[in-house]
């Protein structure tokens, strides 16, 4: 029936658009709305993204067990995990952990792999030439030039978790920089089933980094801060990281303290990854690897939702992939040696 009133839409083309922002009193532009909206949105975005300190990055780390002597070892092997955000190197002496490191992945995967290995060996006189077998894993594994073999990160994480937490582990949640995997394995750390999300940043480390960057809070402090709430708030309603970021800004501006926003965000992430876990089922024992295993705010909430606790390990959860790769290298080298003799 609107077609009975054609006069209603007269002047639709010619009448100018008036554009305002709620912050300012004045009118900002009275020309075509297309260009005006672009200019305004650009200006708003511009002020929002001016971070100088990179709060979102995990600090680089390395460790070496100086009670061990590599010169006395029969087999020296290494595993390199070149991830989307960080890269790790693990060096084993006769299948026992000797040195490891975790560094940021740069724009070049070969350089990142070498950087990780050099970082792990920095306080030793062991060098790459003396390591006969290196296995590469992670999303940049095909670009580890000195690796003899590449193995998927799923197999490596299961193997690494088996070493870190023991043979009773059956379910592993690996929360990496840009993906999240739920893995089932047997008592030897062999993968029996897995599911992964690598399509969407929600439920991955990248989602957490976006929040750390937004709030200018060092990433390692997010978990403890998120637990400082008296009452658990509801989770942020947006799944999408882009929308969740907008929602977090809204919550802060509406007066929510930072801890409450963090709690709300950590809970949403925990719900997201437990949904993935529940699709393959959770069998005991349960173990978490990857950078987010270091975020106690997410881990505690996952445990609460699932009603089970995750096994602890004294080792850094981020090295699981590289450790698994190094263990595979050790087994492969041993097999080679046996073949020769």
């Amino acid at each position, binding site marked *: 029936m609107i077609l009975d009133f054609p006069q209603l839409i007269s002047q639709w083309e010619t009448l100018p658009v*008036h554009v305002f922002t709620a912050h300012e009193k004045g009118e900002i532009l009275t020309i075509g709305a297309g260009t005006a909206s672009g200019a305004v949105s650009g200006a708003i975005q511009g002020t929002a993204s001016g971070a100088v300190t990179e709060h979102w990055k995990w600090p680089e780390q390395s460790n070496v067990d100086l009670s061990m002597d590599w010169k006395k070892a029969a087999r020296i092997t290494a595993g390199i995990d070149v991830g989307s955000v960080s890269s790790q190197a693990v060096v084993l002496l006769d299948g026992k952990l000797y040195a490891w490191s975790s560094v940021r992945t740069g724009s070049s995967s070969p350089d990142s792999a070498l950087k990780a290995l050099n970082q792990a060996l920095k306080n030793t006189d062991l060098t790459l030439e003396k390591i006969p077998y290196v296995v590469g894993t992670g999303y940049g594994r095909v670009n580890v030039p000195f690796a003899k073999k590449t193995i998927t990160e799923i197999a490596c994480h299961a193997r690494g978790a088996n070493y870190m937490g023991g043979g009773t582990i059956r379910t592993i949640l690996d929360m990496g920089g840009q993906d999240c995997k739920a893995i089932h394995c047997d008592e030897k750390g062999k993968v029996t089933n897995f599911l992964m999300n690598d399509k969407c940043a929600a439920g991955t480390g990248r989602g957490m980094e976006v929040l750390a960057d937004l709030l200018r809070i060092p990433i390692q402090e997010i978990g403890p801060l998120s637990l400082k709430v008296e009452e658990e708030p509801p989770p942020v309603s947006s799944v999408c990281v882009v929308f969740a970021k907008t929602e977090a800004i809204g919550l802060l501006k509406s007066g929510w303290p930072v801890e409450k926003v963090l709690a709300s965000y950590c809970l949403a992430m925990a719900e997201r990854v437990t949904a993935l876990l529940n699709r393959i089922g959770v069998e005991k024992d349960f173990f978490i690897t990857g950078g987010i295993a270091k975020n106690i705010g997410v881990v505690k909430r996952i445990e609460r939702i699932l009603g089970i606790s995750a096994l602890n390990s004294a080792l850094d959860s981020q090295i699981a992939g590289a450790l698994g790769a190094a263990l595979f290298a050790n087994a492969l080298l041993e097999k080679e040696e046996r073949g020769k003799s």
Partner: protein
Amino acid sequence: MVVAGMDLGAKAIKVVILSEKGVSAKVKLFPDLDMAQSARKALEEALVQSGTELHELKRIVATGTGRSAAPGKPALVTEPLADAKGIIALLPLTRTVIDVGAEEGRGVKITPQGEVVDFAVNEKCAAGSGAFMESMARSLELKIEDFGEISLKATQAVPMNAQCTVFAESEVVSLIHANTPKSDISRAVHDATASRIAAMTRRVGIEKEVALIGGVAYNPGFVEALKRTLSLETLLIPDHPDFIGALGAALIAYEQAVN
């Protein structure tokens, strides 16, 4: 008789004032966090522009995600209803209307009378929304208003794998590092967005003519990409495509006030 239609979107509030003499105001306001106050301000500005007093306003109809914050006890309508009413008044041949806004994409199938037959919507994920395009333009260090034009200068089709906006940002940065021309990356982004929107719209069935509305309709690169993806020779675009929801709401307000 004077009525108002308001569209409270994720990024902007649009207001249209109508009377039997025609459209007398089109106002767009970028709200702060107080949605209700921003909406009141937007309506006040629209009344000033049209030279109308508040008491002369017979009816207000509001639509959009933030519609519950609209002032003056308005009647509320959903976005597909408002889109359908608005587009059929301007472009009566439209049977499928695609609305790409800041945080939502929508495909609506309509009758010649402007009634909604079916619709599909994506509001869960930023891929296939204006927010995705803005984010990509920022990664490419291009102004959003130049982004579409630049994509039209592409010489090759570069594939883009990431759907997620967050991952697509990294992919764009990698493509820049690999010395891919910005025009080719821009085209890849436009094609990726168009294919998301097309897939969603195909769920309701695409019937000609197809019209594109929402702020993204100002982007000539997206228009070309969508035509390519849907194999369409013509894609109708009304004047002021970002105001169609508000126009539809105003037309519904007029209908309701008459009856």
